[in-house]
C-alpha cells in the first residue's frame, strides 16, 4: 500500500478532514466494540483493586508500594501522555463508573443534579482540594492514604450517580475529569460528526437520546444510551465535557460519528454555541477552571524545590505556627487567587486602556489562552516523574508478587529505573516550549477575533502573561529537585 493509500484508508470518505481513529487498524476495531469501554474499565478497575489492596496491606514505604508508585508516577504520566497523543483516554477507561454501571442495572435515578450545582465551581473546589490534600497529607509518600483516597473517590462517584440521573459526577463533580476536559482541548483528536448534512436529516437523534427499541407493555427501552453529558454531536465543538465514552459512536444509526484529527487547541479560538456547554466566552466557571488548571500546574511543581521549602519555613516562623496546613493554605490562596488576579488583572487593564474593552469580560474571553501553557507545565512536571521512574514498577511488582507467595516474576531487580534527569531535561523544556507556543498562537487568534483592527494591543499584554508563566516554570524546573514531605 502506498503512503497516500494508507492515509486515505484512515479517513472516512464522509469525514471532514484528517485521520479517523475508528478506522485505524486494531484500535479502531476495538473502539467500535460495544463493550470496548467496559473492557477498559474492567481492566482499570482490577488494577484499582490491586492498588487498594497493596496500599492497605503492602509495604509502608512508598517506593516499594504499587499504590503510590502506579498512581503518583505512572498513572499521572500516562494520563498526560494519553491526552497529548490521543485524547481523553483516561475518562474512556475510567473505573470509577463500574460500580455505577452495576448499580444502574438495579435502579434508575430520575432526579437531576440541582441547578445551582450544574456548573464547574464544585469541580474546581474539588480539584483545588485534591491538590491541597496531596501536599498536606503527603499522599505521594503514603500508600495507605493513597488507597483510602482511591476508595473515597469510588464512593463519591457512586453516591452522586446513584442519586442523580445522567452523568453528573463526570460532567460537574469529578476533579480529574475537569482536569482532563481542559487538557484535552490540546489533544489531537475529537469526537465529532463526519457529515453534518447527515445529522440534519436525522429524525431520531439517537446520539443524544439513545437508541430505543419497543418493549413489553407498549413502552420503549434504551438499548444503547446516548451522550449522558448532554453533548449533541451535530453541535458539539471540541473536547470540552467529552469523556470519549463512544456512546454516540455506538448509538448513531448512520455511522456518522468519527474520532477525527484536528489542530490542538484550535477549539478555544472558536466561540459558537456548543452543545452542553454554551458559549465558552460566557462561562465564567469554565474560564476559572482554566485559570486554576494553569496556575495549579505551577503550584503542583512548586512543592518540590528547595527554595520553596525555605520560603515555607520562613512563613511558618513569621506566623509563629507549626502547622503545615496553615502555610499551605496561604500559599494556595496566593498561587490560585492572588497571583492570577494580579497578573490577569494587569493584562486585562492594559488591554482595556488601549482598546476600551470591559476588563472582566475580556479576562473571561482570553483566560482560555492559558490552557496550552498550563498543559505544557503539567506535561513537563509529570513527564519528569514518569520517565525517570519508568521501569521502577517492575521490581515493585516483583516484590508484591513475591510477598504474595508468587515467584514467577523472579527476584526484584532494583537496578531498574528510568531515563536520567539529564536525558529528561530537554523533554521537559520541549513540553514547556510546545505549551507556550500553543498559548501564544491561541492568543493571537483570540486577539484577531476580538480586536481585528489592532490585535497587537490585546496580544502584547497576554504574551507577557505567558512569558511570565514560562519564566516561572523554567525557574522551577531548573531548581535541584528536593522531594520532601517535611519542612517544619
Amino acid at each position: 500500500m502506498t503512503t497516500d493509500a494508507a492515509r486515505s484508508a484512515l479517513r472516512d470518505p464522509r469525514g471532514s478532514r484528517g485521520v479517523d481513529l475508528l478506522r485505524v487498524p486494531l484500535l479502531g476495531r476495538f473502539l467500535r466494540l460495544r463493550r470496548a469501554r467496559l473492557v477498559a474499565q474492567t481492566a482499570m478497575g482490577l488494577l484499582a483493586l490491586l492498588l487498594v489492596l497493596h496500599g492497605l496491606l503492602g509495604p509502608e514505604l512508598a517506593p516499594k508500594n504499587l499504590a503510590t508508585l502506579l498512581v503518583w508516577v505512572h498513572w499521572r504520566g500516562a494520563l498526560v501522555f494519553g491526552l497529548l497523543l490521543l485524547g481523553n483516554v483516561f475518562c474512556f477507561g475510567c473505573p470509577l463508573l463500574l460500580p455505577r454501571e452495576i448499580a444502574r442495572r438495579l435502579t434508575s435515578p430520575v432526579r437531576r443534579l440541582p441547578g445551582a450545582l450544574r456548573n464547574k465551581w464544585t469541580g474546581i473546589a474539588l480539584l483545588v482540594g485534591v491538590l491541597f490534600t496531596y501536599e498536606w497529607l503527603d499522599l505521594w509518600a503514603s500508600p495507605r492514604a493513597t488507597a483510602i483516597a482511591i476508595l473515597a473517590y469510588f464512593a463519591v462517584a457512586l453516591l452522586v450517580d446513584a442519586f442523580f440521573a445522567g452523568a453528573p459526577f463526570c460532567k460537574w463533580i469529578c476533579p480529574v475529569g475537569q482536569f482532563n476536559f481542559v487538557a484535552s482541548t490540546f489533544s489531537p483528536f475529537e469526537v465529532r460528526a463526519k457529515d453534518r448534512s447527515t445529522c440534519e436529516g436525522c429524525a431520531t437523534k439517537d446520539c443524544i437520546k439513545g437508541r430505543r427499541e419497543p418493549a413489553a407493555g407498549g413502552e420503549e427501552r434504551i438499548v444503547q444510551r446516548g451522550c449522558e453529558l448532554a453533548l449533541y454531536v451535530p453541535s458539539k465543538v471540541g473536547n470540552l465535557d467529552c469523556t470519549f465514552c463512544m456512546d454516540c459512536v455506538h448509538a448513531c444509526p448512520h455511522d456518522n460519528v468519527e474520532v477525527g484529527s484536528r489542530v490542538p487547541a484550535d477549539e478555544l479560538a472558536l466561540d459558537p454555541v456548543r452543545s452542553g456547554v454554551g458559549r465558552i466566552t460566557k462561562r465564567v466557571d469554565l474560564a476559572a477552571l482554566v485559570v486554576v488548571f494553569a496556575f495549579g500546574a505551577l503550584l503542583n511543581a512548586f512543592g518540590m524545590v528547595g527554595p520553596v521549602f525555605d520560603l515555607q519555613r520562613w512563613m511558618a516562623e513569621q506566623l509563629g505556627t507549626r502547622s503545615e496546613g496553615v502555610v499551605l493554605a496561604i500559599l494556595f490562596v496566593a498561587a490560585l487567587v492572588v497571583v492570577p488576579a494580579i497578573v490577569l488583572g494587569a493584562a486585562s487593564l492594559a488591554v482595556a486602556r488601549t482598546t476600551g474593552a470591559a476588563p472582566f469580560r475580556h479576562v473571561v474571553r482570553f483566560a482560555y489562552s492559558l490552557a496550552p501553557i498550563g498543559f505544557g507545565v503539567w506535561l513537563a512536571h509529570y513527564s519528569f516523574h514518569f520517565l525517570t521512574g519508568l521501569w521502577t514498577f517492575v521490581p515493585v511488582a516483583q516484590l508484591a508478587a513475591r510477598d504474595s507467595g508468587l515467584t514467577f516474576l523472579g527476584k526484584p531487580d532494583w537496578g531498574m529505573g528510568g531515563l536520567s534527569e539529564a536525558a529528561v531535561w530537554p523533554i521537559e523544556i520541549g513540553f514547556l516550549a510546545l505549551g507556550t507556543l500553543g498559548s501564544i498562537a491561541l492568543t493571537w487568534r483570540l486577539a484577531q477575533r476580538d480586536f481585528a483592527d489592532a490585535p497587537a494591543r490585546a496580544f502584547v499584554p497576554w504574551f507577557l502573561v505567558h512569558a511570565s508563566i514560562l519564566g516561572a516554570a523554567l525557574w522551577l524546573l531548573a531548581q535541584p529537585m528536593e522531594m520532601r514531605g517535611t519542612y517544619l
Partner: protein
Amino acid sequence: MTTQRGLRGASALALVALLGLAACTTKSTEATSAASVAISFDPAPHVGATTCTVKLSDDGGAPLAGADVSVRGDMNHAGMKPVLADLEEGEPGTYSAPFTFTMGGDWIVEVDGKLADGSPVKHSVDVRGVKRDESGS
C-alpha cells in the same frame, strides 16, 4: 421507589463500611533485631558521595562482629531507583560502604542483614532534608 431507596441506602452503608474497614486496617510491622543499630554518614548526608557506617552491638554494648549487612536508601517519593550497598566489616561490629545520595529531599535508609548467629537485623532511619552542597559536590 422503596426498592430504589433501599438500594441507595445499602450502597451508601456498604461504602461507609468499606472506608471504615480501610481506616481500621492495621499494618504488620517489620521484625526488628535485638541488636542495637547505629547508622552514620561521613560526611553528613548531602547530595553526593558519603560513607555509610553501621555499628552493631548487643545489649551490653559489645560489638557484634561477623554479620552480613546491607543498606538500602529510598526517597520518600515513589519512582526513584533505590541506592543499594553491601557493607564490609572493618573494626569488629563496624560495617561501612560508599553510599551516594542521588537527589535532595527526604530519604529512608534501611539496614538489613544477619548476625553471625543467623538472627536477622532490620532497622530503618529517616534522613530528612538532604541538600545539595553549596560547593556543588
